[in-house]
C-alpha cells in the first residue's frame, strides 16, 4: 500500500486546505511550527478512519491516489454536515486504472449512486461507498489499503498505554499460533508488552532481532527479557507480559513502563517496523524526536532506510540530524498562507541545494519558503 498523491481539506471550508503533493516511500514533512504538519498527518489518518471505522465520521475533502496490490485507485470524497449536524457524503468518485486507462468505479452524489456503470438503490450517506461496497471484488483492495494506514503517537495517554500492563487474550494467542500471520498482530490493537510476547512465542526470530537492535542502540543494556506482572508484585488474571531490561552494573529488572521516554519510543518503532504487513502500509510518525537524547535520535533515520519493508513512511521533524539524514528529494516543505497549505517537493530544491557545499539543513533554514513558513 502506498499513497502516490494527496490533497485534502480538514473540517469546514474555513479549515486548512492542503494542496496536492506527491509522495514517495519516505516522506519527511518539514515546515515551521504552525505550518500544518501535524494536521496534514491527521487528515491522512482521518480519511482512512472515515472508511474503516463505522463509529467515526469526518468532515472534509480528500483526493487520494494510491496503489495497493498492483491496483491503482483514485478516491475523491467530499463530506459535510446536514441541517441536523449529521455527517453525510456530498459527493464521491472512485477511479481505477488499467493500462493507464481510467475507469470510473463509483460516481455518487446525494441524488444518485453509480457503481461500475450501474445504478444502485439509495444507500446511507453516512458511510463512504468504500465502506458500503467493501466486499465487492472491485472495491475490496481499496478498502483493505485504507486499513493499512497507521499513526504512531508519541505523546499523552495513547503513548503511555503502550507500556502499561495488559492481559493477553488467550483466544488471540491461539488464533495467531494457527495463522502465523504478522498482519493479524499488526491489526491486533495489543500494546507493546503483549506484541513483544506474541512475537517471542510465534515469531521468535523477529523478537530476537528487535532485542538485538534495541540493545545495540542502548549499549548500557545488558539483557532484555519478557517477565510477568507478578514478577513486579502485581497480580492480574491471565497472561500479563512485561518486557523488562537489566542495565550493566545494576542487578535489577526494569519494567517497560519504567523505561525512559526515548527507550520506549525506540522499542515501539522497532516493534512496529518489524511487524508492518509484508505488502506494505502507510506509517505516520509525528515529531518522533521530542525530548530524546542523541542516541535515540541518531537511531531513527537509519532504521527508516534500512527497514526491509514495502511500507511508506510519512514523518514530521524539526531536528537537524533527522532532516540532514533524509535526502532532500524525500522532503516535503509545507508553507501556510491563511488556510491554504502549499507544498514544495524536495525534488524542486535538490538541484539548487546541490550547487552549494553547505549542509542541506543549513540551506533549508535559509530558504524563504521554509523561513516564512506561516504568512
Amino acid at each position, binding site marked *: 500500500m502506498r499513497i502516490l498523491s494527496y490533497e485534502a481539506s480538514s473540517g469546514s471550508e474555513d479549515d486548512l486546505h492542503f494542496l496536492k503533493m506527491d509522495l514517495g516511500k519516505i516522506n519527511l514533512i518539514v515546515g515551521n511550527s504552525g505550518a500544518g504538519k501535524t494536521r496534514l498527518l491527521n487528515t491522512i489518518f482521518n480519511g482512512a478512519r472515515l472508511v474503516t471505522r463505522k463509529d467515526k465520521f469526518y468532515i472534509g475533502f480528500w483526493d487520494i491516489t494510491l496503489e495497493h496490490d498492483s491496483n491503482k485507485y483514485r478516491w475523491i470524497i467530499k463530506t459535510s454536515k446536514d441541517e441536523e449536524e449529521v455527517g453525510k457524503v456530498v459527493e464521491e468518485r472512485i477511479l481505477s486504472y488499467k493500462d493507464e486507462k481510467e475507469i470510473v468505479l463509483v460516481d455518487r452524489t446525494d441524488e444518485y449512486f453509480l457503481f461500475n456503470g450501474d445504478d444502485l438503490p439509495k444507500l446511507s450517506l453516512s458511510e463512504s461507498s468504500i465502506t458500503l461496497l467493501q466486499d465487492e471484488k472491485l472495491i475490496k483492495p481499496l478498502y483493505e489499503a485504507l486499513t493499512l494506514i497507521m499513526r504512531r503517537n508519541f505523546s499523552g495517554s495513547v503513548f503511555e498505554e503502550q507500556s502499561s500492563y495488559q492481559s493477553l487474550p488467550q483466544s488471540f494467542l491461539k488464533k495467531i499460533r494457527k495463522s502465523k500471520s504478522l498482519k493479524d498482530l499488526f491489526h491486533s490493537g495489543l500494546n507493546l508488552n503483549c506484541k513483544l510476547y506474541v512475537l517471542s512465542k510465534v515469531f521468535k526470530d523477529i523478537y530476537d532481532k528487535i532485542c538485538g537492535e534495541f540493545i545495540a542502540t542502548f549499549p548500557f543494556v545488558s539483557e532484555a527479557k519478557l517477565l510477568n506482572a507478578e514478577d513486579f508484585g502485581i497480580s492480574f488474571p491471565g497472561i500479563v507480559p512485561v518486557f523488562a531490561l537489566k542495565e550493566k552494573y545494576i542487578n535489577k529488572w526494569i519494567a517497560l513502563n519504567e523505561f525512559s521516554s526515548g527507550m520506549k519510543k525506540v522499542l515501539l518503532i522497532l516493534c512496529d517496523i518489524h511487524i508492518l504487513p509484508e505488502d506494505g502500509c502507510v506509517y505516520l510518525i509525528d515529531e518522533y524526536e521530542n525530548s530524546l537524547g542523541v542516541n535515540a535520535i541518531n537511531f531513527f533515520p537509519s532504521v527508516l532506510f534500512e527497514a526491509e519493508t514495502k511500507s511508506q513512511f510519512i514523518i514530521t521533524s524539526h531536528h537537524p540530524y533527522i532532516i540532514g539524514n533524509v535526502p532532500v528529494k524525500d522532503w516535503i516543505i509545507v508553507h501556510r498562507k491563511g488556510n491554504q497549505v502549499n507544498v514544495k517537493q524536495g525534488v524542486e530544491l535538490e538541484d539548487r541545494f546541490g550547487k552549494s557545499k*553547505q549542509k542541506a539543513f543549513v*540551506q533549508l533554514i535559509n530558504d524563504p519558503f521554509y*523561513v516564512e513558513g506561516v504568512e
Partner: protein
Amino acid sequence: MNLYILVEGEMGAQKLYQHWVPMVNPNLAYVPHISLIEKDNFSILGGGGYPGYFDIISSAIEDVNLHDNVDRLVISVDSEDLSYEEKLEEMTDYVSKISCRADIRIIIQHFCFETWALGNWTIIRPHPQSLKLIQYKGFYNVRSEDPELLPPYDLDELNRAQFAAKYLRHALNDKYRNLTYIKNNPKSLLHPKYYQRVKERFEQTNHISSFSDFLSAFN
C-alpha cells in the same frame, strides 16, 4: 559587485541584513540562494544560531570558489564575551588558513547587533514609563553613553549580550506599546529610519565604532 554574506546568529540577524544592506548600497539586490546570484546581487546564509559556524564558513568559502561570480564574501559574527580585537584575530586566523578566490570582509558585531540597535537614541524616551527601563537607564544610559561599552547587568544575572537584547526590548516596548522585539523577528529594526538613526549615531559620535565594519563591507 556580487556578495555572499554569512550571518552567525538567529534568523533575525539575517532579516536585518537583508533590509539594511541595500540601505548601505542601493545597487545591491537580494537573491535567496548563492546559485541565483547574477549581477549586483547579494545572498545571505544564516547559521540559525546552531553550533558549527566555522563549518559553515568553510563550506561558504568552497561555494565562493565554485561560483566565480561572487566578488566578496562577508562574514558577520558577534564578539560576545571577547573584545573586538580578540574576535577579529580569531576570525582572521581561521579564514587565512583557507584559500578563497574572493575578497573576504569580516564584520565584528561588537558585541551583538542589538548593541548597534541601541545606538538609535530616539527609542529611549527621555522619561520612560517602564520601571525596568528606568532601572536600566539609571545603571547605564545608552542615550548618552556608548552602547558598545554596556556592562553586564549582574542584578538580573545578564551578560552584556543578554542585557543589550533585554534593554532593547524594554526600550521598544516603552516607546511603542504594541511593538515587541524578538531576536528571530526584529521587525521594528527593519525600517529605513531606524537604520538612518543608527548610522547617524555612528557618524556623529565616537560610539558603536564596530558599525564601520558593516558600512565598509557593502561599499
